[in-house]
């Protein structure tokens, strides 16, 4: 006991004798990426040291993508944002914190990795959930985060809508499907991770509509004997985007480091780490290497079906949009 206290005190003292990093960055990210960035940050710090001889420290903040964007707008001093979707970064750009051409500054639409939306169900799939229609059945409890705060939730919503459009061909049917699905949602957490916790730890719900990477992570953490993944017939290509927050990096003088950090996400090493954390890599070689890990799903993009994020956000997620109309709580 005494030794533990002594070592704790020693730890505190060393933490106080700040071995101040030469450079410090704040990465404001969306909810499920905690584990990913622990790995990325470690690898990048090593690379940065090797390349420049300086030590770098990257701090993380996680939360629902929409909420994080608003926090940055409200003054959270992010050097980089790695959010769930382009619209949230656009929102920050609109306030003048990010240059308007941010998405062109990096390749692949500034989305170094992609993901999609799948279902996580209890082992044995007792409710027999196979596709989006099953989520709307009476008596099925669906867990998804709040589209008002979470990026993943918006991808979930649009994936369901897109499915209905493709299958039934009418906006009305799509609206009904999504409305019925949300009728089955007992609780809306603020972020994807919150929903996973609700489903996995609090044992609420029959099916979790989640990021693919989050579903695989849940399997890793909680064992394949408790849950299984069900891949829907069709899903949406989700592109989480990254950007430098110009106003902050210029003030702090960390532009070079921040740019190197984002570039690292595209590098083979970064892509490999992403793939190992169940994010679909862009790099073709890495993608080939991890091909077997990702289920084959027919994917549509937001541009094809909805005409891009600006239109989708305005129509569905802004105040008094479609979501507000169908979710009357």
């Amino acid at each position, binding site marked *: 006991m005494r030794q533990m206290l002594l070592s704790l005190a020693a730890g505190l003292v060393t933490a106080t004798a700040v071995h101040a990093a030469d450079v410090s960055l704040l990465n404001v990210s969306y909810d499920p990426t905690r584990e990913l960035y622990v790995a990325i940050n470690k690898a990048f710090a090593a690379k940065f040291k090797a390349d420049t001889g300086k030590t770098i420290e990257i701090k993380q903040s996680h*939360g*629902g993508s*929409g*909420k994080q964007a*608003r926090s940055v707008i*409200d003054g959270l001093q992010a050097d980089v944002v790695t959010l769930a979707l382009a619209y949230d970064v656009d929102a920050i750009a609109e306030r003048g914190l990010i240059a308007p051409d941010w998405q062109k500054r990096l390749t692949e639409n500034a989305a170094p990795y992609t993901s999609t939306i799948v279902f996580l169900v209890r082992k044995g799939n007792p409710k027999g959930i196979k596709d989006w229609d099953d989520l709307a059945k009476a008596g099925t409890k669906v867990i998804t985060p*709040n589209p*008002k*705060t979470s990026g993943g939730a918006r991808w979930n919503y649009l994936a369901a809508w897109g499915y209905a459009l493709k299958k039934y061909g009418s906006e009305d049917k799509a609206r009904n499907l999504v409305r019925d699905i949300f009728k089955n949602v*007992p*609780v*809306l*957490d*603020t972020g994807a991770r919150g929903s996973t916790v609700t489903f996995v730890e*609090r*044992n*609420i719900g029959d099916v979790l509509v989640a990021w693919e990477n989050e579903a695989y992570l849940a399997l890793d953490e909680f064992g394949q004997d408790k849950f299984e993944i069900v891949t829907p017939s069709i899903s949406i290509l989700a592109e989480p985007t990254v950007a430098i927050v110009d106003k902050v990096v210029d003030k702090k003088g960390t532009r070079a480091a921040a740019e190197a950090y984002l570039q690292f996400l595209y590098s083979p090493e970064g892509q490999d780490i992403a793939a190992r954390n169940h994010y679909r890599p862009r790099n073709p070689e890495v993608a080939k290497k991890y091909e077997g890990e990702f289920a084959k799903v027919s994917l549509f993009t937001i541009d094809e079906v909805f005409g891009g994020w600006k239109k989708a956000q305005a129509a569905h997620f802004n105040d008094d949009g479609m979501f507000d109309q169908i979710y009357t*709580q």
Partner: protein
Amino acid sequence: MSKAIAIRRTRRVIPGFGVTLGVTVLWLSLIVLIPLAAIFLKTAELSIGQFFAIVTSRRVLHALQLSFGLSFAAAAVNLVFGMLVVWALVRYRFPGRRILDAMVDIPFALPTAVAGIALTNLYAGSGWIGRHLEPLGIKVAFTPLGIFVALVFIGLPFVVRTVQPVLEDLEKELEEAAASLGASRWTIFCRVVLPSIFPALLTGFALALARAVGEYGSVIFIAGNLPNVSEIAPLLIVIRLQEFRYADATAIAVVMLVAAFLLLFVINALQRWSEARTGRRL
């Protein structure tokens, strides 16, 4: 009024009145009054109609009902059981009494988040208590019942600690006189003891109620946070804040503040009543 009379300055023997009062008022304003005023200012941006629309919307009403209703129930339970506990601690001698007495203060000292995860873990399906209750069909964690348990926990010390000194000071001659007149213990309790400690009981109840209504940390882990079912008002404020609907958040906060001020007013009145009755300030 002639100047001569007006200059009857209160000569104070002890120095420092002006400075200390000034600093006190200044600090109070900076830390408490101005920030609180900010809420009312922000809400004033809404029209009365908007304010009422927000505050009477289904989800908000439900959250407020839940917060106040469960707090009331929890405070009531603490009233009854607190009375039992304080009676045992003051009137009886038994092994472990001192330790129990000290333990009553744990909810005061334990951080709310720690209490929150501990209670959640305990009452979840896999927890020490939950695993016995769930087969019986009783779900505690993630239901309003769980919120109730958490609120009982944090309100527990209030009744006990408020009543304890009054009960200790109670003159035993009163009870002895009643006994000598042939009253049973129960009659003595109801007609001698209870009236004397009644203000203290009520004060403890009101304090527990006030604390429970605003409680956040210990509740959000164990509550299901399901809107219209198990969502407490403070959580709704946080959600609206995260959605950056500041107006909604402040409107709900105003309702809670007004209720809290009313409670505070009631508590102070009760304390003065008790002081008048027993000469002891609670």
